[in-house]
């Protein structure tokens, strides 16, 4: 199994202890608050993924064959989801990222946030993460 899917399963397990949406969201919000800080120099227009409702900044780095993502958002629920995505996708090889199946988001029961019709920029973010991985891949 792809390392990203393994991490995804781990996250699904963490969420599985919650019975209702409120506990899930509370956990997500905690994840948002716990999110590693990003250097403000990366919160620039070029790194901005515009969604209608909340801003997401995404900055990638490529070190020793692995991709690292740093991100931020002005909305805390969005941050929670980003943190989750970063936990899953960061620190992985371009190939692992490109091939990752992100079904775990569905399993957690947060897929509504990833609908392309929910204009929160998360779909664009995942697209962007995979795109960065492809770019880094061509550099190797």
């Amino acid at each position: 199994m792809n390392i990203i899917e393994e991490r995804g399963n781990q996250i699904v397990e963490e969420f599985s202890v919650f019975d209702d949406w409120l506990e899930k969201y509370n956990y997500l919000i905690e994840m948002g608050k716990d999110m590693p800080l990003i250097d403000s120099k990366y919160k620039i227009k070029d790194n901005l993924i515009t969604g209608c409702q909340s801003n997401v900044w995404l900055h990638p780095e490529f070190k020793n064959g692995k991709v690292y993502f740093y991100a931020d958002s002005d909305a805390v629920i969005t941050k929670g989801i980003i943190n989750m995505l970063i936990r899953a996708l960061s620190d992985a090889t371009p190939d692992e990222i490109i091939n990752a199946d992100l079904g775990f988001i569905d399993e957690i029961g947060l897929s509504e946030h990833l609908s392309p019709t929910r204009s929160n920029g998360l779909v664009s973010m995942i697209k962007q993460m995979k795109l960065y991985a492809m770019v880094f891949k061509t550099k190797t």
Partner: protein
Amino acid sequence: MNNEILKIREQFPILNRMVYGKPFAYLDNAATTQKPTKVVKRVSDYYEWENSNVHRGAHFLSQEATVAFEKARTSVSQFINSSNSSEIIFTKGTTESINLVANSYGNKFLKKDDEILITRMEHHSNIVPWQMLCSRTGAKLKVSPIDFSGEMIMREFEKLLNTKTKIVAITHVSNSLGTINPIKEVIEKAHDAGAVVLIDGAQAVSNLKVDVQELDCDFYCFSGHKMYAPMGIGALYGKENLLDKMDPWQGGGEMIAQVTFDKTTYNEIPFKFEAGTPNVSGALGFEAAIHFLSNIGYDFIVNHKDDLLNYGHNRLAEIAGLKFHGTAKRKTGLISFNIEGVHPYDAAVLLDKLGVAIRTGHLCAQPTVDFYNVPGFIRASFGVYNTREEIDLLCDAIEKVKEILS
């Protein structure tokens, strides 16, 4: 809940829907209203028993559909008290109505350095068509400022009016702030300066009795779906003498008098502006919605919305940390605000989960929201079927959101 409202609510089955297993409060009426059963039934009756294309056939069904369609036009005309039903053009909605004027009037009568004057509180549909007209003609877009209560600043507006001002386009009621603009005064001043005036009535028609003759506006635009009618239908009112001298915008179907490859002559108004098969069922649903509104009566509507507005403002003001946007003296049943320290997107997600349908974000009025220097508004907007209880639900939900996010 009072009896009258209960009787109104019975006509809206969707209000009984459960969302996430709970009853929900629909407070997103400025985006679109729900439809009473009579409107829905008018549409399905038409399709099951009367459907035909109009104007085109001599056969019975076509004749009958044409009569019904033109009767609907007359109802719309009476609804806003236009002097003549040929001044009513059926469109898809407000947006198409404004684009029609920006093209058919704008392309013909505006030139380089002419000015179009709008306000800071317009919906994108009353901004972008004018920006596009400016880039086609070299005209300039001028923006009249507002103050923090969400009101026009009349003396600034007057300063911006001048002999170059060819069009004044202004919303009757702001969709982001709820402000009812003093459009009668605006129209008078604009006319004195020699400009024609287009009123964006999208948010007004479900809230106020509109009389285009009394207002003396040149164009008035509105959408069916925001006044309990189906989607895909709306109207443009235009003064006959203006419509007559405008060129058609779209070509095709019944908008012509005669077509040859050498020369095509156009039909009379309103048909000149209605290219293609019209949305007959939409027009009939529109008429049914007008009946729904007149049966209730604007006295009741205004009273009830005022009650919800006041009750809402008072109840929400009790919650710590709420910042209101739009506190004009004359307002419709619409409240925009932010919760201190809470991103509107977070609020929206949680309010939704708690069974409250409100709208957040730029509300298609980005320059207005930017003016208040926030990433978005939270907007609760009331329909004629809403209740104080639903406002209580909203207030409880906001308290809960604050708790979750604290």
